[in-house]
């Protein structure tokens, strides 16, 4: 169908039986962009995708393709390609017929349908399997058929709903590269739903983080990785160390925080009045073990659990005050070792704690504060 220069979601909301699954999603998608909707399960990301595809009616809001309102159109008239989590390949049709389905629906001339189908088959490297039924293919091959089927008619927008979640770790990495390669070569505007932050960071130009149906942050992979907008996003982006604390002093963007007996220096994100409750977020890889000389944010701790992860070790340590610390290090540490931990104040982020009940639950679960 017709290409667009902009797709605009305007206050898109969806309610299921009194429960808000998606609240006022505003998002503008430029043509050629790769957008990832990211969030834990139940955050509304798949709901947003289904609303965009036309498979779910909206309870509020509108969707615009340039100046044309499209949220009232049924899915078959939107012309968006979609890759489903379960692939949803037609089990009674061969690989070739599956891929050609969208072209046949558009009643293209036979010759063109054949040519474009062959092209798509080559693109996903399934030349040897065109006459098989989906049931005879491996998971990765089925996945490639699903992708070819969704892109063969050159849709103005491709929607992908956790397409890699049913694959094993190795295939997932391969397909991730494959999807990125396809996006680079075809330039198709893509909206990609996932709960895997690594997948989203590596694929997308722009990420939309959702939580409980609300947008938490929209930004580039770098922005999300280094500066999450709130501690929920930080939690989701791999800041495994989330400690409760209290502000002692704020000086510009530098905050001094008291957290379970330690005085920590970090970057203040958001408004931090003195004595207010905060959450301190640090990535495991930003914690140094036995740094040289005088180091900031030092804590002494005992290593408790060590996991071997190739170049690095992932370890859990407990500070003398009882705080649990997740860290990654290239040093050979073993359970029982006494270590000195330190953190660069620039890589220690301080957030307003916000809703307290949630904070309690999270902090208790990680065992940091009793």
């Amino acid at each position, binding site marked *: 169908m017709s290409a667009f220069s902009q797709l605009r979601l305007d206050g898109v909301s969806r309610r299921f039986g009194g429960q808000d699954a998606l609240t006022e999603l505003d998002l503008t998608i430029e043509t050629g962009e790769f957008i990832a909707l990211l969030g834990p399960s139940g955050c509304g990301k798949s709901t947003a995708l289904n609303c965009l595809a036309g498979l779910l009616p909206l309870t509020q809001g509108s969707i615009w393709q340039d100046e044309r309102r499209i949220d009232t159109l049924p899915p*078959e008239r939107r012309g968006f390609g979609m890759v*489903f989590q379960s692939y949803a390949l037609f089990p009674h049709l061969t690989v070739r017929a599956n891929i050609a389905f969208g072209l046949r*629906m558009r009643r293209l001339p036979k010759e063109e349908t054949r040519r474009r189908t062959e092209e798509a088959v080559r693109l996903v490297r399934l030349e040897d399997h065109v006459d098989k039924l989906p049931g005879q293919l491996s998971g990765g091959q089925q996945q490639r058929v699903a992708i070819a089927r969704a892109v063969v008619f050159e849709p103005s927008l491709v*929607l992908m709903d956790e397409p890699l979640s049913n694959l094993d770790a190795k295939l997932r990495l391969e397909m991730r590269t494959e999807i990125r390669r396809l996006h680079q070569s075809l330039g198709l505007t893509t909206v990609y739903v996932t709960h895997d932050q690594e997948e989203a960071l590596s694929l997308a130009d722009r990420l939309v983080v959702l939580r409980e149906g609300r947008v938490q942050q929209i930004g580039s992979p770098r922005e999300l990785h280094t500066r999450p907008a709130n501690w929920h996003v930080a939690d989701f982006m791999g800041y495994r160390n989330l400690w409760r604390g209290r502000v002692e002093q704020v000086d510009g963007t530098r905050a001094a925080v008291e957290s379970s007996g330690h005085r920590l220096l970090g970057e203040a994100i958001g408004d931090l009045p003195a004595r207010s409750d905060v959450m301190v977020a640090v990535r495991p890889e930003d914690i140094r073990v036995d740094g040289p000389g005088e180091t900031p944010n030092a804590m002494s701790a005992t290593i408790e659990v060590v996991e071997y992860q190739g170049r690095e070790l992932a370890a859990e340590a407990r500070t003398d005050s009882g705080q649990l610390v997740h860290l990654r290090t290239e040093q050979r540490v073993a359970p029982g070792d006494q270590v000195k931990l330190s953190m660069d104040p620039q890589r220690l982020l301080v957030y307003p704690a916000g809703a307290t009940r949630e904070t309690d639950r999270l902090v208790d679960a990680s065992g940091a504060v009793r």
Partner: protein
Amino acid sequence: MSGSGPGRPLAHWQHRLAERGIDRQLWLLVPALVFVIALFLYPFFYGLTLSFQPTDGGPLSDYARFFSDSYERGTIWITLRIALPAALLNVLAAVPIAYRMRGRFRGKRLVTTLLVVPITLGTVLTAQGLLNFLGPTGWFNRILLAGNLVDEPVRLTHNYWGVFFSLVITGFPFAFLLVLSYLSGIDPTLERAAATLGADWRRRFTMITLPLLMPGLATTFCLTFVLAFSVFPSAVLVGNPAGETRVISLAAYQAAYEQYDYPYASAIAMIMGFVELVIIALVLAARSRFYTGSTGGKG
């Protein structure tokens, strides 16, 4: 094929039996086997041998007697003429209703119950209702007469139509329940995928759902056909058992309990079974041309 080299001892005999599916769980089949043997196989072979022992003549003379008598022979055609269209109508009527009802909606249980209730009525109650409703002085004809739509009552009972309606009423719930379960076994995501690929509901149905449903429809047709083919009570109660609804089971009944000729009755029963088998074989042969593998849903 690397595990069993020449010098290596074979696995324990229990493993080898288990590999062929022989283990202690097989005992669970015993009750079913007892039932099948006592209630089906024994009576069947008893009847089969009995049918070859006519009161006079050679072993096949009862079969010859059936086929040489046009009045008897005709019962096959009479039964088929009722059972085939009734089974077909049941299946065809069940498809759109089940299709509309496959999703979740408020009041689904109520509607399903209403559609399935005729199962509980039994043939006699159905016949009674049909006589009251469609009989010469029933409501249906009274309405037609009152509206001056006809000059004399339309005959819908004690003939072909009475039996036909009765079979539709009692057979439809079976067909509906079966089709509904086959339909819910088809992953609804498939239709959604077809929609995003540009298929309107008509093509979603004809290109995705119907081909996947066809094997189920064939099975449903076979089951409702078998039910309809052995029609007996309604053929007597709302049909014309001496004429156009003298079905084959009636012929067998008369041989057994009016003429007390058990071998002849057995022969008729065997012929009846054979005709059913032929129809089922034809339908299943057609069924095998469709995709019969997994359809992805939970069903």
